[in-house]
């Protein structure tokens, strides 16, 4: 291959590369690639865990932290807004005129026969042998009449 032909091929390849780069650039604008994670700086010292492994803990025990009791959170009362019911205004009902019927029926109160009143006997004498007339005569003459 001559040097000229070689140069032509190189230029052609270079053009193809440029076109591909341009094409890729256009596609990135339309579909941006997620950002590559930032490279973290490499710490100059080892992490604490490793540090602890390297350096043994002090002899004195670490103070136990007191438990932190969270204060109770009192929820603010939620006062619902009064709901005003919608007023339903009934349509006025016009009553039909009632024409009273003349009262002709006479109701009679009928009760069961009343229980008989008892007679109390106070002095042991058989009242049944006395007639009412005799009892009333004795009662009338009690204490005398004059």
């Amino acid at each position, binding site marked *: 291959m001559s040097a000229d032909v070689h140069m032509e091929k190189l230029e052609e390849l270079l053009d193809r590369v440029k076109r591909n780069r341009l094409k890729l650039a256009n596609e990135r604008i339309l579909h941006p690639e997620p950002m590559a994670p930032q490279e973290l700086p490499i710490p100059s010292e080892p992490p604490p865990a490793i540090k602890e492994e390297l350096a043994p803990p002090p002899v004195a025990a670490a103070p136990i932290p007191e438990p932190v009791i969270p204060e109770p959170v009192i929820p603010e009362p939620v006062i619902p807004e009064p709901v005003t019911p919608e007023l339903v205004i009934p349509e006025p009902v016009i009553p039909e005129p009632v024409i009273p019927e003349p009262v002709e029926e006479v109701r009679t109160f009928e009760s069961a026969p*009343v229980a*008989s*009143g008892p*007679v109390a006997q106070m002095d042991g004498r058989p009242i049944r042998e006395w007639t*009412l007339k005799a*009892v009333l005569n004795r009662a*009338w003459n*009690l204490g005398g009449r004059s």
Partner: protein
Amino acid sequence: MTQSAFDATGFFRFDLANGSIISREGEQLALIPVDLLDALEPGEKTRQRSIAFGKTHGKRFSEIIAGLTEPPGVENLADYLGGLTAVFGLGRSVVEIRGNAILFRLISGRKMSDGVVTLLTGFLAGFMSEIEPETTFEILHMQTDDDGDLFWAGNPKAIEQVKDWLADGVKPMEALWLLSEEGR
């Protein structure tokens, strides 16, 4: 139930057209709260009208016992009077015989006012006077106790005598005993 037992059936007739209540004896009545009775004045007017009230029903009772085939007994009086006071809401009445005395016990469960006592003494006096027309029984309210109110029927002279004893502190039943002893 005896022949003269009080029959409450149809005793009251409600005449709604005329707004009135009529008793079987033709009285015009009014149903009123019983508390209103306590407002009755215990005067002569109440007594006289109560006597007329009693006479109306005593007359009816006399007619009933006049139609009996056998001579009426005290049971007949107790039967009729018990029903009558009950139907008028005046209480349950019991006839008591103590010696020769005849007494009426009214059991109403209420404390009687002086006006109601006047009403009942007048009613009983009027009722009794129609049973025995030759007599003019008077009624004296003797006592009030847990068993009701006790009324005694006697002749006017005996009534005055017992009133004097009661005023002197003699107990009611003792006064009746004294009265029976005096008559011997």
